[in-house]
């Protein structure tokens, strides 16, 4: 589904990715682990074409994502749900509107929005917070809202970049369980984290990164 072919990313004075080649197949749950600055976030941003590689190519199915025009890129992004460490919710929109916005973006009707949004909020246990703004929610609630937004359009791929970074162990456990459930329902999940405990709890494929390189891929060691 996703294929990194000798991808490198060099910033002014730092190498974020160093000749990375990796393939992720549909339906997988892949955890990318490494210290801060190992290149996890850069790797996930490459899939969204939020960063351009200095060298190499990134494919989503058979499409080179960095060769896409603006409109095509928008369409690609609609097939991907993204969860960030800092949630990246729309601060001037309520929990309901944040999710409705993602649905509006893909052209869903008002009726679909009215029926699906409460349902997904119930799924992440936020029904009672439907009309609250992100600033009125706790960290765990904000992250659950971000996940709800990411999954509302039933994307083929979920990218979660340090989704538990700002959360306590209880909320972390909840988020991991939700991601596992999403994966069980058929979506591919890429989870970037520096939390070993999270990865152990998942028990699926783990890619370990260090200084922009993949130093270990559990797929090839099992």
């Amino acid at each position, binding site marked *: 589904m996703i294929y990194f072919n000798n991808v490198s990313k060099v910033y002014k004075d730092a190498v974020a990715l160093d000749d990375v080649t990796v393939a992720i197949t549909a339906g997988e749950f892949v955890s990318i682990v490494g210290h801060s600055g190992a290149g996890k976030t850069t790797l996930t941003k490459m899939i969204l074409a*939020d960063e351009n590689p200095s060298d190499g190519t990134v494919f989503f199915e058979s499409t080179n994502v960095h060769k896409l025009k603006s*409109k095509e890129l928008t369409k690609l*992004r609609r097939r991907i749900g993204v969860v960030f460490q800092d949630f*990246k919710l729309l601060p*001037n929109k309520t929990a309901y509107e944040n999710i409705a916005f993602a649905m509006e973006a893909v052209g869903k009707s008002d009726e679909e929005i009215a029926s699906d949004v409460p349902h997904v909020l119930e799924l992440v246990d936020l029904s009672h917070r439907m009309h609250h703004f992100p600033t009125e929610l706790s960290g765990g609630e904000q992250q659950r809202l971000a996940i709800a937004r990411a999954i509302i*359009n039933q994307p083929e791929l979920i990218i979660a970049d340090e989704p538990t970074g700002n959360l306590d162990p209880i909320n972390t456990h909840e988020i991991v369980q939700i991601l596992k459930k999403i994966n069980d329902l058929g979506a591919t999940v890429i989870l970037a984290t520096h939390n070993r405990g999270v990865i152990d709890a998942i028990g699926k494929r783990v890619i370990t990164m260090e200084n922009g390189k993949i130093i270990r891929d559990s797929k090839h060691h099992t």
Partner: protein
Amino acid sequence: MTEFKRIIKAGFINFRRGGLVSWAAVLVVTITLSVIILIILLQAVLYFSLNSVKDKVDVTIYFIPDAPSEKIMLLKSSLEKLPEVANVSYTRAEVALANFRARHGNDYPTIAALDEIGNNPLGAFLNVKAKEVSQYESIASFMKGDNPLLQSIIYKINYNQNKLVIDRLSGIISGAQELGFLVTLILMIISVIITFNTIRLTIFIAKEEIGVMRLVGASKIHVRGPFMVEGAVYGIIATFITLILFTPATAWLGRNMTDFLGLNMYDYYISNLFQIFAIILLSGILLGVISSFLAVRKYLNK
């Protein structure tokens, strides 16, 4: 259609939730629109003053007392055919005398001298008004070069006496018009820059939000649309505030400054309210929409 409705609705909601930031933008647009109205009113005063000065300038052709009226009428009609001429008025010798007597009613020696002469010593005259002050010279030269038969009946043309005043007035009028245009242009540019930057600042606050919208798959128009609607809302609200503010302001000017300005500002404002409203509304909406469009573009690249 649904998308359009959503964009409009989101624009209004953004404005409402923007709170102080939205009202700060409205304030700045209000200032810009006030500058535009001020310019409109200043131009009105300028044109009114210039027109009343222009109206006082004319060229008079005095004829000898026994000049035949057919010849005078011939000259009158040929003058009226000139494109530079606005109108030509003919005053008969008897009327000129009656006017003279009326003007010097209290001047006994002059009236006595007139009575002593017996017949009318004054000739008829033509009063010529040009469309533009600068055109008097060409009218005067037309009369000099015209039929020599006509020249024989002309006693004098007062153009040369007025020439200095006319030349100076033409200079002042064209200078005032150029200066007015320049000041208008500079004020407009400054106001537009300030408005654009204020709106840019309001959008800068939402910079990250725009990035997130794009990452969740929103199209450019879906991101940009609500900001443009918000910009239009700034313009619409600022238009009404500006028009309301100028009502008491022009009423005060009308009450206290009409003699000084030569024009009743309140009457002018009220009688042109619809045109002013249209200009202001269009300017306000365009300012808001274009500023938002340009400001969002910077963050829409990805």
